[in-house]
């Protein structure tokens, strides 16, 4: 029995190999013609003729078209889109999106996104709302390509709440769209100050127009007791008028707030904040001491010689060690922590 099963698996391996080889040859034979048509269409919207594409070859063709299209921009991209429409392949991509296998649907999602095909909107919206992590994210991406502002508004709840939508990947999309497009959605999200997913919104806020985003976040300093909210706000503090807030946060019970306060004081403070930072340098939490030492090295008007003197006279050896560390780090780098 086991030998029979093993033989069946070996046969399956042979069949898989044969099928794959046959398919590769078939695609290789057709790919040259596809590339030629795409090249011709790039320069002239009326040029480029494609032989009829069988259903079997359609995903491979669209995959190639997606890659070529993603590497082009402006008129060339419009012309390539025209090539697809002329041959009715946009319609077939829509068909794949609705009825294809997972792989085919993913390919079709990229295609309809690149084509900015509004007819796909309802299907994409449905997938973005119900699909698994990768599929729903791919659908969201396509929606954003089709109509960015409308998509961001439609997806804002998911952007905030779906923690399986990686913030790093969302950041790529936000960076690509640019501050002008993402800022309205970001400000709406920030004003609503969601209880769940606030940290996500704050991280994404860096892709918005700082002049519009920062005042909203800073406004939280006076309006909230939530440590997460205060931390986020402290990271946006950039004006010495907000120094009292930062100084009062330096004695907060939550260490993460004290750490954010140290960072803020380093950014906007001057020698008059020395006492607060020296206090933070003796904090029981390593990260607070670390950021306090970093802040001291950044304080406006402080020289390395003065810092060295503080270090030499420090009675707390944890503080002295941390300051020595920060001083040594000064010429080497600044790390993000």
């Amino acid at each position, binding site marked *: *029995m*086991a*030998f029979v*099963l*093993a033989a069946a*698996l*070996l046969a*399956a*391996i042979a069949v*898989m*190999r044969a099928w794959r080889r046959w398919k590769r040859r078939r695609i290789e034979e057709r790919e040259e013609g596809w590339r030629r048509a795409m090249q011709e269409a790039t320069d002239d919207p009326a040029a480029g003729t494609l032989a009829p594409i069988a259903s079997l070859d359609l995903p491979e063709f669209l*995959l190639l078209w*997606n890659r070529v299209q*993603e590497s082009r921009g402006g008129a060339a991209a419009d012309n390539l889109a025209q090539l697809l429409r002329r041959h009715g392949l946009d319609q077939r991509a829509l068909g794949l999106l609705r009825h294809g*296998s*997972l*792989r085919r649907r*993913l*390919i079709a999602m*990229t295609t309809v996104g690149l084509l900015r095909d509004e007819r796909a909107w309802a299907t994409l919206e449905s997938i973005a709302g119900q699909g698994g*992590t*990768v599929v729903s994210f*791919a659908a969201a991406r396509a929606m954003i390509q089709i109509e960015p502002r409308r998509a961001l508004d439609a997806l804002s709840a998911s952007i905030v709440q779906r*923690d*399986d939508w*990686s*913030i*790093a*990947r*969302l*950041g*790529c999309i*936000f*960076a*690509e769209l640019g501050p002008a497009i993402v800022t309205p959605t970001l400000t709406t999200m920030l004003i609503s100050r969601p209880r769940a997913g606030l940290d996500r919104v704050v*991280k994404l806020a860096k892709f918005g127009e700082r002049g519009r985003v920062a005042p909203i976040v800073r406004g939280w300093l006076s309006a909230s007791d939530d440590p997460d909210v205060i931390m986020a706000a402290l990271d946006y503090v950039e004006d010495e008028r907000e120094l009292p807030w930062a100084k009062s946060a330096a004695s907060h019970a939550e260490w993460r707030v004290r750490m954010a306060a140290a960072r803020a004081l380093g950014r906007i403070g001057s020698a008059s904040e020395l006492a607060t930072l020296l206090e933070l340098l003796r904090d029981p939490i*390593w990260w607070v*001491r*670390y950021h306090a*030492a970093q802040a001291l090295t950044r304080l406006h008007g402080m020289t390395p010689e003065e810092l060295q003197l503080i270090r030499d006279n420090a009675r707390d050896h*944890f503080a002295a*060690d*941390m300051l*020595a*560390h920060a*001083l*040594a780090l000064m010429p*080497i*780098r600044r*790390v*993000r*922590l």
Partner: protein
Amino acid sequence: MKTIASGLAWFFILYFVLESLGHLALNFLAIPALRRKIALRPVDDVPAVYSGLEPPVSLLVPAHDEEKAIVASVGALLQLEYPEFEVVVVNDGSTDGTLAVLQEAFELEPFPEALWRRLPTREVRTVFQSRKHPNLRVVDKEHGGRADSLNVGINASRYPLFCAMDVDSILQRDSLRRVVEPFLDDPHTIASGGTVRIANGCTVTDGHLAAVALPQSRLALLQIVEYLRALLFVRLGWAALNAVLVIPSAFGVFRKDAVVEVGGYRADTIGEDMELVVRLHRVLRARGTRYSVHFVPDPICWTQAPESSRALMVQRVRWQRGLAQSLHGNRAIFTMKGGGAERWLAVPFFLLFECYGPLFEVAGYVLMTAMWLLGLIPGATFAAFLALVFSLGFLLSVSALYLEEMSFRLYPRASQMALLVLVALVENLGYRQLMAVFRLGGLARWVRDIRIRFHPRA
């Protein structure tokens, strides 16, 4: 007597059948994950774009007497494609020139590091900072073993994720990005392990894998099929159940907070990597914390397999001791409330078939032969036993080759596949039995360790 022999024969037959069926079931469990992986390739293969919001990673490289390999290895790590990472080499009291070659190659200078000693470790002598590479530090410490070095690395690391590595791990430029991906997609991820493939016979350029090929060494060739059968697809099967118990020492990323919370690596174990993962399961389950451990099946880490039977024996003895220590050191997992597949399936499976497996396997081969020679069991029963062991072993290896063909196809030439099928056939005629003996040696060493612990000589 014959009744007892007959009962024993049935026991061994049943044991081998259950073990093979268990592994086959895990292979089948891996199929949906592999199918999904294949389907997602159109979005997975697009060039990486970074937003700056990716979690930064500290690569921890423990090194003990690695004078010959360390510079090339660190040089390759510094070329990895990832937005933000640091390399922390921990020189574990090397007696050769490991530190000297590092100092020369990377222009190290002493650095007044304010170490956060969250985990107890052996004495740290000096921390060095590279003048050439701002993201490279070397920590020189007293010899304390790999686990102690990793704990030092954790103390010295500055980022929320750390990657535990071996000096001889060969990575691809995108390896770090791929192994970190589970942390992006699943916020509950606490660990993610990369697949380890055998590098013997492959071409390595500038410390990175350039071309895949099969090795000349027969022993390494046998290990290729064994890795596919026992390490790759079986682990993917466990991953489908969120019951991965082993993150390879060669390449695994962990969430630092979670590891520090459970006390870091245990310096008194041999298999510190497995022990840590089992402990993470045990502690986090007991606390009711939601977490997941992922396994990345893509071929992203390569390592040199032993090419001599002695080196192979040393490796397998070490693995088996580590496995036994990890499972028995965390036996509280059996008595805790609740628990998922890792408690109800993975740990019992590992205990029965991986930990005590060699005992039953070697006893099976020896006793069945002896009983047949003594006429206690019929020749037909003995023949059936051998046929079963051989055919099920072959079926398991072929199913692993099938999954490899379905997914990664690292060996695309027909001659390569034919050779691997031949190896799948041949490995049942001595190699598997030899591995069982080596593993039994490891189990015996573990028992001796316990006896020494409980009855130390005056």
